[in-house]
């Protein structure tokens, strides 16, 4: 049992599940948006804004943003703990990794709040 505090959920299984579920949500969103644009290639601003002002669509968009956030957190955390470690780059690795992890988490949270602002600002 290896314990860590900066991973997304504390358990490997929950991270793994979140990673799978979020991938499905993002794929569904992508297919929906691309499909919508293909079917309405001459979409006007009114139509586009109308699509995004309904509550179900906002929920879908928000869910996708949450998925992106969780997916990125878990993925980036894995990459950082693979490559920025004491074994690969020496004793400074811990500080560097914490710096990147905190930066990454801050960025993800900013994006999330920004997305909420955009979605509910339409």
């Amino acid at each position, binding site marked *: *049992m290896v314990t*860590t505090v900066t*991973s997304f959920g504390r358990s*490997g*299984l929950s*991270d*793994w599940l979140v990673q799978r579920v979020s991938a499905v949500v993002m794929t569904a969103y992508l297919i929906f948006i691309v499909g919508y644009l293909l079917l309405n290639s001459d979409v006007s601003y009114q139509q586009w804004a109308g699509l995004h002002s309904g509550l179900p669509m906002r929920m879908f968009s928000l869910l996708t943003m949450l998925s992106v956030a969780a997916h990125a957190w878990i993925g980036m955390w894995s990459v950082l703990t*693979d490559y920025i*470690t004491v074994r690969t780059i020496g004793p400074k690795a811990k500080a560097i990794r914490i710096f990147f992890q905190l930066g990454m988490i801050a960025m993800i949270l900013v994006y999330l709040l920004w997305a909420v602002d955009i979605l509910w600002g339409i």
Partner: protein
Amino acid sequence: MLNVSIYRYNPEVDDEPYMEDFQFDTEGKDIMVLDVLEKLKIKDPTLVFRRSCREGVCGSDGVNISGKNGLACITPLSEAVKGNKLVIRPLPGLPVIRDLVIDMSQFYAQYEKIQPYMINNSPAPTIERLQSPEERSKLDGLYECILCACCSTACPSFWWNPDKFIGPAGLLQAYRFLADSRDTATEERLARLDDPFSVFRCHGIMNCVQVCPKGLNPTKAIGHIRNMLIRSAT
């Protein structure tokens, strides 16, 4: 003449490792890589490597042969030589002690973590704990592992985190005991594996499957462990 290039490093005299080239006469025969090493050692007794059974049973002569991990004793030159050249290096990712001999402590430490022994605290029956042929067959493809470390040292996840990720060899054995009908510690074993590193650092790259000299499939065993974790958590 065959060109043989071998990784040499003796920390007592060398500042850093280097590749030494030898010319080797195979006399037209398709011998094993280990035979080449043995003959070269007669010429140069300072060449160091591990070997014991010379027939793929003991697991001591795992080396990197022309870029692929394998047992020198059961790898014929016809499989290993590329463009009249044979390159032999130690298994990657673990510290080199000398020449082709690596320090396997981390590999064994991971093996130890999975408690590679039967746990069953119920009173022992007079003769033995029986298994049905079906129960026994669940261990096929698992018990044959000879702990040669070819798989774990071919696994990028093990290279980056050999102290945290159990690695394909250890996980294959973890599943060997999870799958054993006589073992009663399944839940405890699973609980010890449910962190972000021990099992979940496996990204299904399948290098382990590609190199296992015994034809075993650690990736599949890891998938089974993951499914058991999912089932026990839901």
